């Protein structure tokens, strides 16, 4: 593959494309704000401004170098786990175990960084799964034990194990993607997952009438879901061949996987928030909510895409 400044050429074009899209979207929002009544588009403006920060941070970190990329992705896991553990009921006695949960982040991302897939894939589902329970058992407090160990392990699976698939894709992708390397695969996944969120939201706003999950997330509609999946499939079929070793058809299929998994990850987090009685998972990102509100789709889409790709395209 050809490179510009050590970055696969197609990834540079993709980055330029993202910024072009962002500038166009910002222009539309500015025009709406200028013509519409004062304050009506405040949330939209906040969201757009936050997109600039998020895309800026993501592209900078991912394009700078491998180490920075992995630290950045690990930091997202840290923010997500912190938000999760701050929302759920916890026990005072488990303070020490929570430190270990945070410690699992650098270790898990280290396995990804050294491309040790076998350890990466068992460290949290096997070793941490067994370890958290042991530490809690040895503390000797059985009151609320099952809830404590269950919620902790589940949260670490989602925010650390699930999201760390992005780092694994970045590192392991190099050997299997002659078109644009691991960074091309990561771009394909993240850009599509985020684009899918926006597309589902827009289609839902435009045409949404029939609710998919009235109890969990009443704003999600069939129109939004179908429109979003279709749009994401179209875009992925278009860009897939330039970022991944997949042709148009396989790219479309991968887009479908990312889109559906993203939707399910989103709904899953909605169920958590509804159970806990909060609207947003946090206040970190103006207009969006917390970090969990932004990466919820990736908690599903990242593992789903990595294993889809691995099954069909890794010998």
């Amino acid at each position, binding site marked *: 593959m050809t490179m510009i400044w050590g970055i696969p050429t197609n990834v540079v074009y993709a980055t330029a494309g993202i910024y072009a899209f962002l500038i166009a979207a910002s222009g539309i929002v500015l025009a709406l704000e200028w013509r519409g009544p004062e304050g009506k588009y405040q949330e939209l403006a906040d969201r757009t401004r936050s997109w600039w920060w998020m895309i800026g941070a993501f592209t900078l970190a991912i394009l700078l170098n491998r180490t920075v990329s992995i630290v950045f992705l690990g930091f997202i896991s840290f923010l997500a786990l912190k938000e999760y553990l701050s*929302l759920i009921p*916890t*026990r005072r006695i488990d*303070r020490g175990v929570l430190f270990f949960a945070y410690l699992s982040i650098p270790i898990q991302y280290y396995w990804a960084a050294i491309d040790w897939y076998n350890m990466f894939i068992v460290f949290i589902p096997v070793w941490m799964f067994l370890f958290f329970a042991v530490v809690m058992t040895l503390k000797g407090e059985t009151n609320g034990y099952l809830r404590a160990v269950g919620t902790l392990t589940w949260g670490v699976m989602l925010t650390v194990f699930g999201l760390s698939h992005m780092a694994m894709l970045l590192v392991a992708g190099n050997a299997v993607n002659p078109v644009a390397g691991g960074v091309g695969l990561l771009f394909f996944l993240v850009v599509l997952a985020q684009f899918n969120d926006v597309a589902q939201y827009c289609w839902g706003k435009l045409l949404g009438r029939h609710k998919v999950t009235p109890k969990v997330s009443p704003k999600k509609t069939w129109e939004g879901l179908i429109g979003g999946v279709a749009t994401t499939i179209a875009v992925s079929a278009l860009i897939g061949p330039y970022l991944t070793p997949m042709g148009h058809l396989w790219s479309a299929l991968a887009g479908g996987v990312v889109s559906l998994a993203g939707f399910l990850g989103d709904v899953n987090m909605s169920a958590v928030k509804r159970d*806990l009685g909060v609207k947003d998972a946090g206040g970190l990102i103006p207009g969006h909510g917390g970090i969990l509100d932004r990466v919820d789709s990736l908690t599903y889409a990242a593992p789903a895409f990595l294993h889809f790709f691995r099954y069909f395209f890794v010998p």
Partner: protein
Amino acid sequence: MNTLLRFLFFAVLVRAVVLIWLGLNVRHRERLPEDGPAIIAANHNSHLDTMALMSLFPLKLLPKLRPVAAADYFDTGGFWGWFAKNIIGIIPVKRGSGKEGNPLEPCERALDRGEILIIFPEGSRGEPEAMQAFKKGIGHLATARRKVPVVPVFMYGLGKAMPKGSGLILPVNCTVSVGELLYGKPSYDAFVKELGASMTALAKQEKLPEWE
């Protein structure tokens, strides 16, 4: 020299810990005073409370920020005594009944100089994340300086991050909710009740996860 150390401590270390390691959700930041004199009255769960509150203000106000602290606990000489006085910038106050003259006099003088006092009316950290009854000192102070606004601030999460007796800081997203300004009343007792009610109302607006 101490001024520089204090600036570096708050500008670099405290901000990094509070913003990255912890993370604050601040509600109604706009209600914070833009300049002194003012009294910030907050609930107390952790040594981190002071740091979190001070990080809410712009650095140019740092010289004016004065946490009020118990003399018997903090003003003890040695490294931590020096640290509390010069880096944190506390005003030491004698706990007790106030029989040996007015123990709040240094606070009143600080308000007269236009400084911003940080006071924990519960008097001590107590059990983390459990609010205790307020002491009367805040009422006396507000009554003595009736033009100075008192800002009730409810905080949640810092007691989980670093409870009494722990030196390690667990990453926890914390909530800081700023209430509407209050002013001293002729009766200090009535003021303490009003402040307590305001704090309880702020706490009620938050969805707080169980922690036991």
